[in-house]
């Protein structure tokens, strides 16, 4: 059996660390996700952080915004690879789903996470 997928949360400031902490508090799973902040990074430095976080394992990169430095470095790293996939608009709901479905191929896990994250965005009547 291949390694379970690693999730790398790529964000501005401390969003990634906060999401990781929340996932661990809710699920008790604390070995599935790695936080990466773009603080103080140009694109080269951020790519180095991402490479270390992925650690040569199959991975899904959960990026905060669908544009900007977190996205550009993530997509460059994943370009042409089947062992790394990218999802944007990371939220807690998609990460909660992801940590229990880490046996999928990266692209399939990314699609599943995107669907789970989208389902969580609602405007409930108050």
């Amino acid at each position: 059996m291949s390694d379970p997928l690693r999730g790398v949360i790529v964000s501005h400031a401390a969003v990634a660390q906060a999401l990781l902490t929340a996932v661990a508090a809710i699920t008790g799973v604390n070995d599935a996700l790695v936080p990466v902040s773009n603080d103080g990074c140009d694109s080269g430095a951020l790519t180095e952080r991402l490479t270390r976080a992925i650690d040569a394992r199959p991975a899904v990169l959960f990026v905060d915004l669908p544009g900007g430095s977190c996205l550009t470095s993530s997509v460059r790293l994943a370009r042409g690879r089947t062992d790394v996939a990218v999802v944007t608009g990371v939220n807690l709901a998609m990460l909660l789903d992801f940590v229990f479905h880490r046996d999928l191929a990266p692209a399939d896990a990314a699609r599943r996470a995107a669907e789970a994250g989208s389902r969580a965005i609602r405007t409930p009547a108050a």
Partner: protein
Amino acid sequence: MSIALYRVDDRLIHGQVVVGWGKPLNARFIVLVDDSVRSSDQEQELYRMGVPPDIEVVFASTAEARQRLSEWERDPRTGILVFGDIDTLAALAANGHGVSRVNVGGLHHRPGRSERLRYVYLSDGEAAKLKALAAQGVEVTAQDVPTTRPVPLEDFT
């Protein structure tokens, strides 16, 4: 309105440019000057993804930017021009070519650079180039987002 912001930022188009500066300036177009991005459709698509569809993104090589600078300055819309390094700035500003003010918005750590501000790292050579531009009449300040104080060149070189 022309170019409201000439910005040196090694992240090129990103949140601080599009939202931090773009919103208060009401920018309607962004010019990204970078020879490498200009020659890659994939890279252009990546940078375009971070910009709302109602803001035009123009990709230009340094040579193209030198030719089109006056055209962008005459544009009735407000624009932002961003480039990733001081050499590109120097090329654009050479011979009084139309750049009168520059915002140093983000140059990060690399070998040979030292920290001048939290978001500005410069080599001695880069600092000297900025001083040379200032001596030619270019107003150079550092400021990451509009809500912070612009830092005069002499305070970070």
